[in-house]
């Protein structure tokens, strides 16, 4: 995945995507299908690889590292496993095969976000409202573009009319799928943020080794070193948290919501700290449109607020830890 993306999705490609109408490349999407990445979580019976979240977060980290504009996380990491769990829905099952082949883009819509990403190219929107889940075709929605500070992100305000035929789950099943959507998407954000944070750190380190002031590389100044070291600490301690959350989702562990919220908070903190630090280390050149640093800084800031800002995830953890039940804990159970 890393070598594929470093060729197919370098900074030149990312910048070029800002200029095109859709901002997306069919060729790149086909490449992701060919790699098996799109079908990673599609069951083998539907032409996928039948792998799980523990594998998926590794690919998502690479997406963050490459600042991939395509809705890979939305389709492959969120929609695919949700559709797979809709056993009785023939349409959902047939979409799965299309996802694996690269011929269907599905984007999730959840009340936690005011906007939906990639509705302009999505073949389907998997929508959670209250305790209902709807599967909407492109012609059942109207989407109004909301320009994002991250020029890669295509966000839309969605308008749709509920139709009897579009509802694929309700009641208890709908509520649990809604939670599942949020957990999967927040986990996907966290995993991407690890890649974003790593890339920003790498760029800052490379620049600090090359840029000279006062006759030496700025990276030899302790004030610069220590800021970068602090970022390295945060990234190091966010990664196993994301891995644990992935494992909890994969095994449907009771504490998965808490584990995911923790991962979302930790990885977003690492990425936003990396963004701030990388900019400071670059000085004025980092504050320009010209320099590629902005690609990852803006991604870090955008992802930080999507699928629940930290406040939302803190509240979920607080509810679990302070709600009277025993606090979920790794190893050291209470």
């Amino acid at each position: 995945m890393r070598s594929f993306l470093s060729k197919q999705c370098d900074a030149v490609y990312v910048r070029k995507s800002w200029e095109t109408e859709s901002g997306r490349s069919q060729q790149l999407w086909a490449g992701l299908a060919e790699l098996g990445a799109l079908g990673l979580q599609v069951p083998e019976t539907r032409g996928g690889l039948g792998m799980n979240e523990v594998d998926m977060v590794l690919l998502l980290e690479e997406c963050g590292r490459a600042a991939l504009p395509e809705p890979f996380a939305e389709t492959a990491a969120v929609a695919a496993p949700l559709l797979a769990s809709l056993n009785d829905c023939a349409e959902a099952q047939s979409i799965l095969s299309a996802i694996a082949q690269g011929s269907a883009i599905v984007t999730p819509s959840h009340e936690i976000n005011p906007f939906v990403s990639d509705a302009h190219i999505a073949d389907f929107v998997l929508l959670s409202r209250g305790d209902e889940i709807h599967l909407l075709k492109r012609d059942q929605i109207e989407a109004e573009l909301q320009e994002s500070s991250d020029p890669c992100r295509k966000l839309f305000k969605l308008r749709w009319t509920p139709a009897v035929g579009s509802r694929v789950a309700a009641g208890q099943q709908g509520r649990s799928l809604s939670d599942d959507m949020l957990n999967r998407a927040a986990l996907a954000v966290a995993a991407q943020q690890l890649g974003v944070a790593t890339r920003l750190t790498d760029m800052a380190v490379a620049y600090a080794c090359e840029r000279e002031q006062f006759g030496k590389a700025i990276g030899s100044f302790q004030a610069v070193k220590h800021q970068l070291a602090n970022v390295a600490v945060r990234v190091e301690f966010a990664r196993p948290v994301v891995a644990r959350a992935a494992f909890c989702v994969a095994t449907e562990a009771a504490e998965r919501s808490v584990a995911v919220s923790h991962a979302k908070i930790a990885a977003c903190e690492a990425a936003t700290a990396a963004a701030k630090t990388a900019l400071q280390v670059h000085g004025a050149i980092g504050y320009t449109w010209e320099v590629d640093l902005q690609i990852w800084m803006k991604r870090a800031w955008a992802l930080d607020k999507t699928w629940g800002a930290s406040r939302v995830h803190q509240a979920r953890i607080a509810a679990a830890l302070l709600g009277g039940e025993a606090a979920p804990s790794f190893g050291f159970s209470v």
Partner: protein
Amino acid sequence: MDTADGFEAHRRWEQTLNEGRWAMVPWPRKYGGRGANLIEWLIFEEEYFRAGAPGRVNQNGIFLLGPTLMDFGTEEQKARYLPPMASSREVWAQGWSEPNAGSDMAAIRASARKQGGSYIINGQKTWCSRAAFADWLFGIFRTDPDSQRHRGLTFILVPLNAKGITVRPIAQLDGETGFAEVFFDDVEVPLANRLGEENQGWKVAMATAGFERGLMLRSPARFQATAKRLLELYKRHAAEVDDSVRNAVLKAWMDAEAYCLNTYKTASQLIAGGSIGAESSLNKIFWSELDVHMHETALSILDARAEILPTAPEAGDVDGWLGGFLFSMAGPIYAGTNEIQRNVIAERLLGLPRA
């Protein structure tokens, strides 16, 4: 632990532990352990802290020197030193720092001159934890008088009752005798007390430092136990404090979990044959900052009672938070200051140029 009576009580507890082979479970059976792997050791630690069992008086021995002996000791040395270490019949102090060699440990001046079958040691060590009551000291001494910096140093084991040694206790922030200065005046120890090669002491010491910053010294259960106590403290006082305190409590819980997860990751890597290098510096910063954060948060919950000692009549549930807070403030200093760790991370992990 930092009074003579308390020290002896801890020593007796260690003996009890050792009788059940619980003192150092990862060690081989012949040295008093159970041959447990690192994951099993972490599980032991979880149970130990869950039970609220006493602090380990011989931690310099069992957690730092012990693993170093396993790597660098001869068979005779292991057989000689490990069993009494496991039972705490011999409690160890660490003698690295000197008045003029703190962060700059390579500036060590205390010397060990070879004479016949012995080293003759002169000079001074300081800040040696628990040396006021300990039996032995491991330290690094300059064996090559013409050497500079980290060359020419040798790792030597010194009995603290040897002739020519003066131990001067130093009271710590809490007023207790937590560490001591040690003066060496023509102290004679056999050459056999050398650990590793002569003039290779730096290398041996760095391995010990790796254990100290990395896995052994601060097992995750210690912080998870504190996080759990903090959660309980918060629940009792939730109505009196605002949301910023709640968020600080959540952060404490999350970071203690993250530390645990990362430790399991490291332990798995070690079991798979990997090694820890400069990564241990990431660890040291994380646990020391976590410990400070948890205690600061506890004090902010206790509010005006935060300054009250547990012995005060109105102490209520102040417990050991204040004492824990004071000790947490030492965390960013000992085992190599956090500034030094940041230098290590920047230069060795990130590859930034040396100053």
